[in-house]
């Protein structure tokens, strides 16, 4: 069952974050998951479905994906390696400015890269990166990050309990008064995502999600299939956005993963 990380753990791990961050060099190649480990993840049909973009997944695709993540490409390098900001395991860099990619639907990530390249999703950093990748490389790196089952970083900071309560309510049942549909409608139970096109919210960084909601509201980001997110975000206040983002940042898919979290921060 999905659970919200109890505040006790949050407090206890504050010190550990520092230690973890120090031990983590984003360019450290020893951190990257082995192809065998990625293939093992694909034994689960759900992960396989999640990771498929256009073609079947094989060693070559995953290997290409890893190379792209490390900064390689036919065009002589993507300019900036994915791992620089998103990490080799796709956990993001912990600042919350860069989203977690591990386990996001492959097709979703592929579409974002295509949209970054075309300007459909404007972003100063990502547009330049995506424009240097071939279609095949976009597919490969998407499959690569989709196949990773990486531990979660601890949630930084504390948030008012009432705000979290409100965020949870918006996420689960929406608001009749404001005409806001629940997040779970599309993002799946507990915001776990709905592959291939809908990303997870659970475990994503709050600052990233809040920023995206603002971009949806302002119409800067407008690249979902049916323009649903702009309609919803335009009904949300800044506080609604923060509430729902802080809430989902604290939701974890299952207990087993929570245990992984704990060991990761030891």
């Amino acid at each position: 069952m999905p659970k919200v990380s109890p505040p006790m753990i949050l407090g206890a791990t504050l010190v550990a974050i520092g230690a973890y961050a120090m031990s983590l060099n984003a360019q450290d190649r020893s951190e990257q998951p082995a192809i065998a480990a990625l293939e093992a993840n694909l034994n689960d049909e759900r992960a396989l479905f999640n990771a498929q973009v256009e073609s079947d997944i094989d060693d070559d695709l995953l290997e290409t994906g890893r190379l792209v993540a490390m900064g390689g490409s036919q065009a002589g390098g993507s300019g900036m390696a994915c791992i620089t900001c998103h990490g080799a395991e796709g956990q993001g860099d912990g600042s919350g400015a860069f989203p977690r990619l591990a386990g996001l639907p492959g097709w979703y990530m592929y579409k974002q890269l295509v949209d970054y390249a075309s300007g459909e999703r404007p972003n100063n950093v990502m547009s330049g990166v995506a424009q240097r990748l071939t279609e095949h490389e976009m597919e490969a790196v998407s499959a690569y990050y989709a196949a990773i089952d990486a531990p979660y970083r601890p949630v930084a900071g504390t948030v008012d309990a009432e705000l979290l309560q409100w965020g949870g309510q918006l996420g689960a049942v929406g608001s009749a008064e404001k005409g806001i549909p629940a997040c779970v409608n599309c993002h799946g139970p507990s915001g776990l995502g709905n592959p291939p096109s809908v990303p997870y919210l659970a475990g994503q960084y709050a600052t990233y999600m809040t920023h995206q909601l603002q971009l949806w509201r302002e119409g800067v980001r407008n690249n979902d299939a049916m323009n649903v997110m702009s309609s919803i975000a335009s009904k949300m206040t800044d506080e609604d956005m923060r509430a729902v983002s802080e809430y989902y940042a604290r939701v974890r898919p299952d207990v087993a993963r929570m245990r992984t979290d704990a060991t990761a921060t030891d």
Partner: protein
Amino acid sequence: MAMRELPKTDVVIVGGGWTGLTAAYELAHAGQRCVILERGQPRHTATSFAGPEEHDELKYALRYGHMQDVKKETLTFRNSRDQQALPMRRLGSFLPGSGLGGAGIHWNGQIWRPLPSDLEMRSHYDARYGSQFIPEDLTVQDWGVTYDELEPHLDFFERICGAAGSAGNLNGETRPGGNPFEGARTSDYPNPPMKQPISNTLFGQAAERLGYNPFPMPSANVTAAYENPYGAQLHPCTYCGYCERFGCGYFAKADPIICVYDRIKDHENFEIRFGAQALRVEKSRDGKTATGVVYQDEDGVEVFQPADTVCLNAYALWNVHLMLVSGLGQPYDPETRQGTVGRNYSYQTIAAVDAFFDDEIVTNPFMGAGALGMVVDDFNGDNFDHSELGFVGGGYIACKQYHGRPISYQPVPDGTPKWGAEWKRVLRETYSRHGDLVIHGSSMSTPENYLDLDPTWTDAFGRPLLRMTFNFPENDRKMSDYVMNRALDIAREMDHVTSVSSVNLAREGADYSIVPYQTTHNVGGAVIGTDPTTSVVNRYGQMWDHHNVFVFGACLFPQNLGYNPTGPLMGLAYWTLDHMKRDYLKNPGPLMDA
């Protein structure tokens, strides 16, 4: 008499669905204090219909989570007068709703207008084919209100819903991509048509090759962010495939809660009482007017709500039932063919054609929406020459992709075993290679199809149950068979089709069965017209016998159209409300001479 009497209000409205909430909205803004009596419970689109919980097919589609409770109220049924009618203890052929929003919550969102000739059916057929043409056993009649009169109201309801479609006739000018047979519209649909999946596209291409005029089905599954004239904000449809039998937590299927209720609920002239089961309408001593409505409240107490004006906005069947148990109007007697309440009940003919594709086609049927279809209207109404056919009426042919739900969507070609390993093997192949064609046809009224009170059975409140006596007339069977064969022609013309099968629920030689689901389009029983001997209400929806009772909904249809009823019945509702506001409220009295 009721145990408790409340202070008088201006208008009491029975039922909180599309027509009841709309009546309250319009009349409250006209200065009338409105009280709605809703038998069901409050609910909201955001908080009650969100996925993934709402996408519980077993709970809502099969166990009828949003439908009315037949343990409290139901009807009895028989095919003909020589049979003993028996109560429906489980819903089947049709699914009336209960609770805020009524059946407007679980509709598919197919939003149509009647053809101009549909509304003047008898005059039109008499003029085109001669006065002997309509078979004698049919009680087909004119509506008493014309398309041109309804047009502004049909248009307004399309804007309330944010309807998505492509106009075929804009101010008399035929436009490509729309329905060339539709009556002239004064404005285009407020939103662009839905995106069509592969099966519907192949259907449209085949229909075009055969010389027909395919167009996207008009849809209240909204295609863009939209604000309606009441200020309600609707969101774009995600094609989730959970419309019919489900509420839409995406705010994408227009429903009475977001489109109307949210915009009126805080108005000082508006009040709604939930769990308020209307029992009967009380009449004045002279019987000429209604004095209010007696209902049972949530505590089981009988309450009398007096009012100057009574609006009947329950489901079509229950409006008729309420009139019968209250002694409003004259009940219809099939022996003498006198009386009007219960007369001209009719239904809808439904047939289906299944087309199966080769392995080049993947339909992904789970990507669907209630009104996601391509339609051919060449065989609806009198859009085709009936002179040699021996029947009146028609229907539309649509290729739809409205759901791919795991329990109910199991398309297999004829000759497949009904169960077991072979059935599973075939289904795995055909689930995503299926084109779903429906033939949605009209149904004519006859003197032998009617509604009255059952002499044997009573409901939970001690009232006699409504009794339905119904069988499809020969006319409808012939019509349905003819149009289904045209659908088969199109299916066989479609590219990539390897096999085709069909089923007609109104086929010749088989009685209408109330058990398998067909459609929740029960119409008639309290019909509109200009002659008090053949209609319950005048052309403004006002009862001939009680001028302060106004009737809404599909019970007004003198016979059924080939279209889904929500658009036409809401056009009628706005027409009635317009005349109430303009003429009646200032000077209450009959709006037409009997």
